[in-house]
């Protein structure tokens, strides 16, 4: 019985609160309403955007690693500068994975590229030689796994017959990666340039067939060449490779696949099997953590600003209506109904702001960033906004608005009725 009456009272308070709030909002100065909604939009925008950009950058780094370098699983020898023993046995094991889709075997070796044309022009020129990782691949296999051919910015990717050609990462070329590092880079290299490739005591002349830009610094500092050319150059008859990148079916479990390989390969102590997530350098993971923390800090600051905005708006409104609030209480309107009317108003401001900026973010900014990614030295950043992220931040802002609308309303409604009416 008691619960029922208090429920009915609450229902009545809400009805009256809504009645008052709707009319207050409707008959407010539309410009000031628009201004408040605008401020709330900016608040939400800040909460979403800064974090979104920062996390988008970290995501960009992570996904470029996976897409262009490690694929779903990357196998490397346990100790460096050694190849994977029993590579072909491992290969057949990988191909027996239920989720297997494709793999690419890579032979890697440290190499030096020299631009001899450059040397001839000017002896002291520094942009004449660069060292990098030479990667021998089967271009068809590699392209299936990592789609590198789509990232060629000038020229073309290798095909099976390019026995004297290389594809070179933009990180090794001065003209394509300006000023971001003090390491020496080749200058004046274009598609068709002939360079001297040196591995240990062996060298040969190669021509540049394409320049690649994946946004991933590991890949962008590599030199790609046909596996057969490399093998000939190094006199390497061994079929043991240095890296195997494995592409699995979509939605398959990388961890399971990794375990399958480790469990079934007899020489598993000689290899390191890593899922895409595990191959990520710690620096990138740290960066992602730092970036999301920064994003959250910016978000919290905007939230505080938004809360203060709502507080001031409602407080000023309630203070200037102090007399009317007194009169309402005087004729028997409950304080709670009046508080509810202010809470509804602040919720309206917050929700309008949230909707407005979500609309801008989802329909304009996210597509815009997809078309025009932010270029950073290490990677490309897109806007990382998820619906769940928007909803979570929206919820936080809504609750903040609710509290910061309620407090000033409460401060005014709890004043003595007669004092409020008489302006004492």
């Amino acid at each position, binding site marked *: 019985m008691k619960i029922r009456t208090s429920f*009915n009272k609450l229902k009545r308070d809400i009805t009256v609160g809504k*009645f*008052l709030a709707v009319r207050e909002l409707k008959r407010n100065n539309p410009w000031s309403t628009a201004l408040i909604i605008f401020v709330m939009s900016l608040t939400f925008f800040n909460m979403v955007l800064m974090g979104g950009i920062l996390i988008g950058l970290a995501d960009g780094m992570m996904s470029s690693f996976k897409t262009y370098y490690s694929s779903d699983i990357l196998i490397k020898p346990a100790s460096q500068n050694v190849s994977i023993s029993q590579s072909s046995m491992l290969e057949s094991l990988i191909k027996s994975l239920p989720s297997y889709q494709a793999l690419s075997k890579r032979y890697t070796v440290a190499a030096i590229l020299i631009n001899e044309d450059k040397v001839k022009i000017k002896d002291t020129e520094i942009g004449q030689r660069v060292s990098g990782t030479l990667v021998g691949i089967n271009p068809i296999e590699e392209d299936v796994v990592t789609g590198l051919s789509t990232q060629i910015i000038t020229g073309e990717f290798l095909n099976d017959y390019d026995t004297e050609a290389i594809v070179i990462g933009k990180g090794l070329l001065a003209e394509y990666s300006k000023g971001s590092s003090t390491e020496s880079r080749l200058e004046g290299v274009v598609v068709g340039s002939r360079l001297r490739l040196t591995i240990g005591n062996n060298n040969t002349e190669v021509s540049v067939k394409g320049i690649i830009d994946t946004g991933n610094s590991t890949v962008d500092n590599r030199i790609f060449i046909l596996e057969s050319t490399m093998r000939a150059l190094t006199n390497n008859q061994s079929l043991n490779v240095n890296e195997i990148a494995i592409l699995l079916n979509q939605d398959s479990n990388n961890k399971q696949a990794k375990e399958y390989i480790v469990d079934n390969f007899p020489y598993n102590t000689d290899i390191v099997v890593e899922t895409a997530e595990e191959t990520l350098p710690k620096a990138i993971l740290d960066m992602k953590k730092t970036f999301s923390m920064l994003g959250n800090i910016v978000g919290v600051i905007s939230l505080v600003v938004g809360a203060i905005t709502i507080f001031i708006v409602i407080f000023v409104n309630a203070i200037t209506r102090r007399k009317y609030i007194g*009169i309402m209480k005087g004729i*028997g309107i409950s304080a709670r109904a009046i508080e509810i009317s202010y809470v509804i108003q602040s919720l309206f401001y917050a929700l309008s702001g949230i909707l407005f900026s979500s609309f801008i973010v989802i329909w304009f900014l996210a597509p815009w960033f997809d078309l025009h990614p932010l270029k950073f030295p290490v990677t490309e950043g897109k806007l990382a906004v998820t619906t769940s992220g928007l909803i979570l931040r929206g919820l936080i802002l809504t609750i903040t608005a609710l509290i910061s609308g309620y407090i000033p309303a409460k401060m005014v409604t709890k004043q003595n*009725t*007669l004092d409020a009416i008489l302006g004492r």
Partner: protein
Amino acid sequence: MIKIKNLTKIFTLGDNTLIAVNNLSFLVPSGQFLAITGISGSGKSTLLYQLSLLDRPNRGTISIDNINTSKLTSGERISYRLKNLGYIFQDYAILPTLTAKENVMLPLLMQGVKENIAQEKAKEALLKVDLQDRLDHLPSQLSGGQQQRVSIARAIVHNPKILFADEPTANLDTESSETILKIFLNLHKQGQTIIMATHELDYAKLAERNIELRDGIIIRDTLKKSKNH
């Protein structure tokens, strides 16, 4: 019937104490139109605030229809006011963001009356104060006299036991004031108990009974013989 006994309201300002209502005892039968008169500062408003439960006296009791209102909690006083009392302030005191009709609906909605019914009742109340053609006007679009009539409609829409009015004509021109008094006389004819404070004797004379205050004390209490209920 309102029974007022030993009603006292004291204001303390520093060392000074001011007895604004001084040990008043009197009865107001149901249906009476009572005017409280007296010069400015004589205690009319203070008395009305006590009677309408807007304020709490220092001493004394007010019983309305055998309910001792001094025993009510503040929550109960609010809901008692909502259901049983109507109050007309000197300066109209209607809400600027609500239309005439919405202002009048408000106390009904607060009592849980459905919106469409509240609308009908508000229209009826506004008809009684001759504002049926101003239902959807905002206060800013109404004259002072019209705003005061909205305020009357709001005070009577829920058929209160007692209608209080504190200087309802003080801010109005003669014509508007007379309209207001006519409305009061009409309500009185229909049995409405009215307690009105005014310093304008011409209007006080129209009431059934006059109580004149000075320094919080009743110095005259006159009843028109012809208008016995």
